[in-house]
């Protein structure tokens, strides 16, 4: 994996981060593998789109258009992972009435591969989350919440490894400190573990032990703060092997993924797509099959296909 050759460059435009590929270059399908990451964060029970007279996001969001789009992308792409960075609960009467049941069921129906727990997942207490968990057919990744003395013991995972077309994608989850933003009665005996320490441990397990080709952190820590508070940026700068942090909590709208130099002087990307499901994030990572290294990525939506023949 030290052959990884991760090329820097702008991702704001629709162009692929070329590594010497001229637009006319054509690579055979057999040479490359593309992994398509789709993601959401802070959907906050926004199951119906915003009303058309909404002041901020008229007609935006909604589970049905999101599901249709995901379905279409799955038809176009062979290797799709659909991930959520937490706070699926709270924000509309759907949560007040059904306690998160519908959010879980719809995410399962859309084929989410993994999620993490945001602070609002604790709104109805550990019992409230535990009650809805059977409605999810995907794992919740929560490496820095120690639930051993709670009813959630053994019901979430630190990380999960997905295998796609010969590649291993390791995904782990990080949650925010609950003291101060949730009631003790809600999180009970949950122990909050240092997210950076946990991230270092997780990246080691995923990269060094399991030899993952791609390491993704699903984080509900928040994008960036003016204080020393731990954030996605702090995690990105102080770890070695994370390729992508999919963030949440701060409801940050990033036009394009933020690129941060990690401890290995490689690039770690951070992405977050606002809130309420008004956007669906997408990142494509391209791997050279024979050499195994990650060669390029794009945050464009489809144009990457014009450079690679898949």
């Amino acid at each position: 994996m030290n052959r990884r050759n991760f090329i820097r460059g702008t991702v704001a435009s629709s162009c692929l981060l070329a590594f010497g590929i001229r637009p006319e270059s054509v690579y055979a399908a057999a040479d490359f593998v593309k992994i398509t990451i789709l993601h959401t964060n802070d959907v906050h029970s926004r199951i119906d789109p915003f009303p058309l007279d909404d002041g901020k996001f008229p007609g935006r969001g909604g589970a049905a258009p999101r599901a249709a789009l995901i379905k279409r992308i799955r038809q176009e792409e062979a290797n799709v992972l659909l991930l959520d960075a937490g706070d699926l609960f709270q924000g509309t009467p759907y949560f007040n009435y059904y306690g998160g049941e519908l959010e879980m069921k719809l995410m399962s129906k859309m084929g989410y591969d993994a999620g993490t727990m945001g602070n609002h997942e604790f709104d109805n207490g550990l019992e409230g989350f535990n009650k809805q968990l059977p409605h999810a057919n995907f794992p919740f990744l929560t490496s820095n919440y120690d639930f051993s003395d709670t009813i959630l013991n053994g019901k979430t995972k630190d990380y999960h490894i997905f295998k796609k077309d010969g590649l291993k994608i390791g995904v782990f989850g990080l949650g925010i400190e609950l003291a101060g933003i949730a009631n003790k009665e809600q999180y009970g005996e949950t122990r909050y573990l240092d997210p950076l320490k946990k991230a270092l441990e997780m990246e080691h397990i995923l990269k060094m032990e399991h030899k993952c080709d791609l390491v993704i952190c699903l984080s509900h820590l928040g994008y960036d703060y003016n204080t020393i508070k731990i954030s996605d940026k702090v995690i990105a700068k102080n770890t070695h092997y994370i390729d992508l942090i999919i963030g949440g909590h701060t409801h940050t709208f990033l036009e394009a993924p933020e690129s941060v130099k990690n401890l290995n002087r490689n690039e770690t990307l951070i992405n977050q797509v606002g809130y309420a499901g008004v956007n669906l994030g997408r990142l494509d990572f391209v791997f050279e099959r024979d050499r195994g290294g990650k060669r390029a990525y794009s945050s464009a939506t489809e144009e990457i296909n014009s450079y690679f023949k898949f």
Partner: protein
Amino acid sequence: MYSINKELPKDSSVLNFYQPYKSKIDSQMNRAVAHTASEIKRGRPEGRLNNLTADGLAFSARNHNIDFDFVHINYKTLRVPLPVGQIKTFKIFELMPFENNLVTVKLKGSDVFELFQYMARLGGDPISGASFKIEKGKATEILIAGEILNFEKSYIVLTNDYLANGGDGASVYLKTIERKNHSVKQRDAFLEYLNQLQSKGTLVNPRLDARIVSDKVIDDE
């Protein structure tokens, strides 16, 4: 990144799947829970919406056999005014969107005094079962159930978990002698009160009754 918007096709299996959930909510959200005589707004030092909600919580708490001496909730928990005429359930969800529960906090008389000073600094908060004056930013003439605040006694305040946890700078609540969390949501308690008014055919028309009088008028934010 894709924008999710109304131009996109909708997945009909998803729409069909959640339609029963939606119908149930829509029918309940569109249920009329009250009729108001005029628009009811929050205000400082005292507001008609403040009095309506604080009195409503007091009413429902008694129905739930919750023991307390007076009610105090935070002004900012009242998010929108109630318009004139028919009020539907969804308006109460807009008024109180958060899942706050009722909490009772027992405080020493001297800490209750501090609590009123906190309210005076803010220019007044929604209360029920108590009254006071604000003079030069200080609370004076504090009466609980019509009687002068006694520093030697302890009092039970009915509030919500947000304030009881010291939210909005109300750290005085953390000095509690005894705290009880009740499994009654603030919003549900208020809805219970409105339902009760509606079942009697009462038009909702709260009054300002000088429970808080200030030497200074504070504009709503």
